[in-house]
Every structure is written in structure tokens, then in C-alpha cells.
């Protein structure tokens, strides 16, 4: 196996356009804000990027093509990344190779979505054909119901309890309280979690993300360019991506990471124990638990026990979703696929401010996306390391 390393390519200039619960602005507006923010961090003008990767659910009827004209960009490399929760890592993978090959010099990777009143219902109502044909007509619980079935099966299979999952949610809320941009501002106690009203059993209120509007961005460029600009940057040690793995598993209890996890750590020449922090895709705590298992932190079925023995807060022994993640900062559509990447980039470049983990150099970022029918189809992960 001879995968080429990502030598000479880095990511820099993380920017988060602060989320709002509802917004009358458009995806175009949100993407412009994040792009502008990232460019300002880098000291670049829009004319100076020649690559553009976009992830968004609410651009319709536009595509990234229309965005170039709308935003006055003239890239020589353009990509649309429709992979939801995996879109941050997938965008990075593609952009990094483009920069490495010289097809582009600076690629702006941006994800952004708006959330008008009733916008989430409308977004869901045309999400995928399988969802229209085979999932919405069954109670229309949306992703909550789909993941409730997964969580129900997981609990039956491995004996995990709601209290185990509460440990993840409660720690993330503690992290979010240090992030001024997190939508959730109130402390969450373990009892709050356990006594929350049911949404789709066994999922209750604090297992769910809050749909919101927002955008996230970062730039991919050569290491030389980042140095010339005087930017703190992160190197890409390893990445993996997989779609529709284990299609014959009756209920999704593992994701595509399992197929590629050995390659992930081999390419990085590191292991899970080397990570200073972990950013999982946390649409539900059970999914975060699954990622710790599938990415090699512990055996399958032991994730809940493994995590309960760990302190997942910023000051803990396994800092996890340090910005509060989607569970406590909010799920801004496709930006939910970028939130972990952008936060990890801040962390390993020591620019995370109030959520900074001490001496954070190495981070694992994991992505999971797109419930086409009964399960998340896309999985991805990458290992970042702070430069110089």
C-alpha cells in the first residue's frame, strides 16, 4: 500500500461565523461571512484564492458554480462536497491533493447553511429519495427516530445505558460553557440529561442537536505559503474516507472507519493514545461512542464504559469536542461537518482561546454523514498535527 503522504500541504486560518438559532439570511450570506473571516485571518483577498470547496444543504437552486459568480470568485479548482457530517474531512482530502499536485495554490474550504423558521422541516422533507420512500412516512421523526433505532439496538446489544451516553453530553456542555459562540449557555447536569423529555425513545432532548444557522471555513495551502503569510498551521498526518460500508449489517452498530482504521494510524505513524484531543461527529452521543470504538480507542461495545472512565472536558484526560460540538454549540447544517475540523485546527495551532487544551499538538477529527435511509452512509477521519 503506497499512499502518498500529505507533505508540504497544511491547513490554516480557521474561522467560525457565530451560529444563530434561526436566520433569515441565506446560505450564500453565511458562506460569504465565513469565507471573508478566514481570508481576513490569513490576510488574503478573495482574488488570491484559486480553489474553492463548498458544503451546503440550503444553497438551492444554486450550486458552488453560482456561488463563484455571486461572490466574485474565479477559482481554477471548484468542488461541491455533499457529504454532510463528513464534508470537512472530504473537502480537506481533496483540497490537499489539489494543492500538492499544483492544481491550486490556496483552496478555501467552506461549509455554511441557513435555518429559516420551518427550514429544518423543509430541508428534511426533500433530503433523499430513500428517506422520502422509506423513512419519513413512518412517524416522521427525522434523524432523531433513525438514530433512536440505532441507539436502541446498541443498548440491547452491548448493555450500554442512557447514563453512559449522558456522560458524553454533560462533558460537552461543560466545554460549550467556555465557548462564547455556543448556542447552549446553561449548565447541563447528569440528572437534567436523564430526566429530559423523550423525543424518540431512547433518545431524549439532550441527545439531540439544535438545528441552527452558521458557517465554518479554513484554507488549504502549501506549508511555504503559510509560513510566508506568517500563519499558524496544521499538517495532515493521515486521512481516511469510506461510503456505504457494511451495507449488510441489519442495524448500523459500526461505521466505515472500521474498514480503514488501520490505514489511518499506520499512515499517521501514531495511535489513538497519541492524540491530545478528539473531535467526533456528535449528532448523537451514541454516534460519538461508536467512533471511539471504530477508531481504535477501545473494543466494539466497550465505548460507553471506556468513556465513562475518562474526563472528556477541556481540562480532562481525553478532551472531546472542545467547542461543545454540535450537541451544545449547535448544528449549522453542513457546517456540522466542519465544526470539529475548524476547532481542531484552532487547538493544534494554539489559537482556541477560551477552549484551548493545554499543549495540544495532535488531534483526531472524525466525520459521519448523510442518513440516506436507515444509517449514516459517509465516514471519514483525519489526524492533524500542529506545525512547527
Amino acid at each position, binding site marked *: 500500500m503506497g499512499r502518498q503522504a500529505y507533505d508540504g500541504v497544511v491547513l490554516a486560518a480557521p474561522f467560525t461565523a457565530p451560529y444563530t438559532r434561526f436566520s433569515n439570511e441565506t446560505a450564500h450570506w453565511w458562506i460569504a461571512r465565513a469565507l471573508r473571516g478566514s481570508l481576513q485571518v490569513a490576510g488574503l483577498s478573495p482574488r488570491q484564492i484559486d480553489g474553492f470547496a463548498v458544503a451546503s444543504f440550503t444553497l438551492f437552486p444554486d450550486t458552488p458554480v453560482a456561488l463563484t459568480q455571486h461572490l466574485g470568485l474565479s477559482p481554477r479548482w471548484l468542488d461541491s462536497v455533499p457529504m454532510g457530517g463528513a464534508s470537512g474531512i472530504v473537502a480537506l482530502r481533496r483540497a490537499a491533493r489539489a494543492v500538492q499536485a499544483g492544481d491550486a495554490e490556496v483552496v478555501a474550504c467552506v461549509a455554511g447553511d441557513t435555518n429559516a423558521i420551518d427550514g429544518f422541516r423543509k430541508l428534511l422533507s426533500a433530503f433523499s429519495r430513500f428517506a422520502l420512500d422509506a423513512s419519513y412516512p413512518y412517524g*416522521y421523526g427525522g434523524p432523531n427516530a433513525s438514530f433512536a433505532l440505532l441507539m436502541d439496538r446498541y443498548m440491547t446489544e452491548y448493555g450500554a445505558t442512557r447514563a453512559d451516553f449522558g456522560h458524553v453530553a454533560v462533558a460537552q456542555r461543560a466545554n460549550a460553557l467556555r465557548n462564547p459562540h455556543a448556542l447552549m449557555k446553561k449548565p447541563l447536569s447528569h440528572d437534567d440529561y436523564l430526566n429530559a423529555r423523550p423525543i424518540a425513545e431512547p433518545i431524549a432532548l439532550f441527545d439531540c442537536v439544535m438545528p441552527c444557522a452558521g458557517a465554518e471555513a479554513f484554507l488549504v495551502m502549501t506549508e511555504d505559503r503559510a509560513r510566508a503569510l506568517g500563519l499558524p498551521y496544521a499538517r495532515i498526518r493521515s486521512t481516511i474516507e469510506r461510503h456505504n460500508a457494511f451495507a449488510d449489517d441489519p442495524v448500523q452498530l459500526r461505521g466505515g472507519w472500521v474498514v480503514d482504521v488501520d490505514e489511518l494510524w499506520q499512515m499517521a505513524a501514531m495511535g489513538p493514545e497519541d492524540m491530545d484531543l478528539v473531535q467526533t461527529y456528535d449528532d448523537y452521543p451514541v454516534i460519538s461512542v461508536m467512533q471511539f470504538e471504530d477508531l481504535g480507542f477501545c473494543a466494539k461495545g466497550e465505548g460507553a464504559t471506556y468513556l465513562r472512565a475518562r474526563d472528556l472536558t477541556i481540562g480532562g484526560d481525553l478532551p472531546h469536542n472542545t467547542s461543545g460540538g454540535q450537541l451544545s454549540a449547535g448544528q449549522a447544517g453542513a457546517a456540522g461537518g466542519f465544526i470539529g475540523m475548524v476547532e481542531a485546527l484552532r487547538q493544534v495551532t494554539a489559537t482556541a482561546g477560551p477552549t484551548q487544551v493545554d499543549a495540544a499538538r495532535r488531534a483526531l477529527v472524525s466525520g459521519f454523514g448523510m442518513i440516506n435511509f436507515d444509517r449514516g452512509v459517509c465516514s471519514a477521519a483525519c489526524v492533524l498535527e500542529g506545525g512547527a
Partner: protein
Amino acid sequence: MTQPLAPPPKKNPERRTPVPMLPPGTRSRAGLGLALAAGQGRFALQVCTECGAVQYPPRDACHQCLATDLAWRDLPSGGQLLAETTIHASSDPYFRERLPWRAGTVQLDAGPVVLAHIHGDVARGARVRMALMLDRAGQGVLVALPEQETPHMQDDTILRAMGTHPRHRRVLITDARAPEAVALARALLDAGVAQVFMGLAEAWRPFPGRTRLEALDKVSLHRLDVTDAESLTDLAGAIGGKVDILINNARHIRPGGVIGASLTDARDSMEIGALGLMRLAQAFGPGMRARGADGVNSAVAWVNVLPAQALAHDPGFAGAVAAGAAARALSLSLRAELRGGGIRLLHVHAGPMDDEWHQPLPPPKLAPAALARAIVQGLEQGLEEIHAGDVARDLAQRFAENPALLAREMEGGA
């Protein structure tokens, strides 16, 4: 265990009748195949004609071998409940009014894993019997039922929300004089209906069933002539708000071909069978469509009894069958118009009946009681297309296989 459904209280006229909402009704072209099977009470999914892989959700290409020839085939309906949830929050207005709602993941014996509605009597992790049923939007959905019958299982909230069961409902039968009228009234009473209104044209003309109908409790006779719009307006004004199920069995079957036939008979067949349906729909359709969510005895179904030969033609009953074909076409349009109110339109294709107008025909012929049973079963199961009698079933099968060949075969008589 399912609690038996209590009869509804008298309607409070001061309360607003709830606006009928429908569950999500958008489907792909392949996805519509579920509704076709569900409407016929079949449990069918797509099967790859090359490698035999069963497909779900409905697809355009085989997920095993990429072949594009996928055929709908009847399959074993057993399954095992793997995971379940009870939904307490939904952004969809239809489900939001009906929470909590139980749904689950079922491993089908036929292969695929599906998401399904779960009947209240199904235990966690139990074996289930799957059914494809029409929901209120008229789309086919999978329902996991207890493997064995349970008491009052028809009264389950999910089945009641989707189905057209006559229990506690009030039914209008348009033609008290039709051969199946008495048997139909009895079968409906046995199914638990609250009231049977029977329409009677030219009430002065005696007919043998009259005394038997008058002897039945909860059955009343009303002036109704589908060729007389005024009689329909009058009756709709009197009982239109109480008709939960309308069974239009008014038809005028007379023998004869085209060249030597009576135009008067043909016109009567059209006036009663086809235009009568249209008049009825104009009188009763608006009220029913507005009452699709009106509690336990909401309006749910419209039944049209059609001659089975209406799928093609019949040289021995040319005019009557042509009226049936016209009625069927009108009825398909009416089905679309009623769907917005959540009202199911059931076609009952009746084979030649054992009556005076089919007297010279050889058997098998359809007994009035058999037709009545088929109609009530169709309502109990929430179907959309049923074929009553051996001749009707045979015609339907031949029609499905090759409509042109059927038409040619009918030239020599069915």
C-alpha cells in the same frame, strides 16, 4: 393488548372539525409500486430478475448486480423486530397530531431490513407478520403486526389511523334494490357499523329485499336516485355530514352488443353507472373530503362497484360494460380528488352476478353474499382494488399480464 375502540360521543357542533392532514406523500416512481401492492393487499417487493436479490427501499437498479430489470413479486411476510422507537416529537403536522407513534427496524425473512410502523401488540424483539398497507396519504407503507391475531387488534391506533375499518362508522349504500344490498347491510352490521343509510330510487316500486331491510336494526331507507341531482342534494343536506363510508353499488347491467342493442339501455347504464357516480361525488364528495380527520367516525372510504369486464370490454354486455369503463375512469380521477381529505377510494370489480340479467351465462357466477363479504373485507383491510369472484380475479390477472391479449380474447366472450 389493544383496548377496544369506544363508540364516539355525539359530535359537538361548537367545535371546529379538524382539518384533514396527510402523512408525507411524496414518492419516487419506483416507490409508488408499494402503493399498488398495498392497494391489492399483497406483500410484494422488487426482486432482481437476474440475480434474485430482494430490493428495499425501492430502486431502479439491483444493489447486488446492477441489473435494471426489477419486478414486483409476492414474498414471505415474516420478520423479526430488531429495534424500536416511540416517537414523541415530529415536525410533520400529520404525525404531530398523532404522537406518540411507534416505529421500528424489522429484518424480513425475505432478506431486506426495513423501517416499519409497529402494531401496539408486538412485543420487543418479537417475530412479526408484515403487511403492506395504504396510509392516509394513499401510499404503501410497511406495518409489523403480531404474528398471531390478538383481541381487538383492528382497533390499534396506528391501524385505525391508516385504515378504513367500518366499525363505529356510518355507511350510505346507494342502491337498496341491488342484488347484494341485503347481504351487504348485514355484513356491515356484523363488522360493527353504527348506521346504514340505504338509497332507494322510485320507492313506489316493490322489491323483494324491502321487508328484510326494514327488519334490520340501524338500517334506514332514504329517497336517492343517482340520475336525479335534486334527490342527491336533498339527501346530502340531511345526512351528508354523517356519511363516513359511501358504497356506490348503483349500476344498470343489461345484455346486448353494439349494433343491435337498445340505446335506451345503454343510456340508462351511462346515466346510472357513470354520470350517476359523478352526481354522487358532487353531492357527497365535498362533505366527506372535509371530514377525513373527524375523530373515531371520520369519513374514510368511497366504494365503487364496477363490472369486472370494465378492465376491457364484453360483447355480450357492451353498453353496460362501457358505462362501467367510463365509471372506472371517472373513479380514478375521483380517487385523486378525495385523497386530499384522506378518503380512500375502493374499486370493487364484480364478476357476473347470479341474477336475472346474467341468467343464460354459465357458472361461476358471483353470489350476492360473496360480493357483500368482499366489499366489507376490502374496507376492513383498507384496500383500493379488489376483484370479487372467480371471473373477476381471472380477468384481473389476464389484464395485468397483457391487456391487449385480454381484449382480443374477450371477443369470443370471457
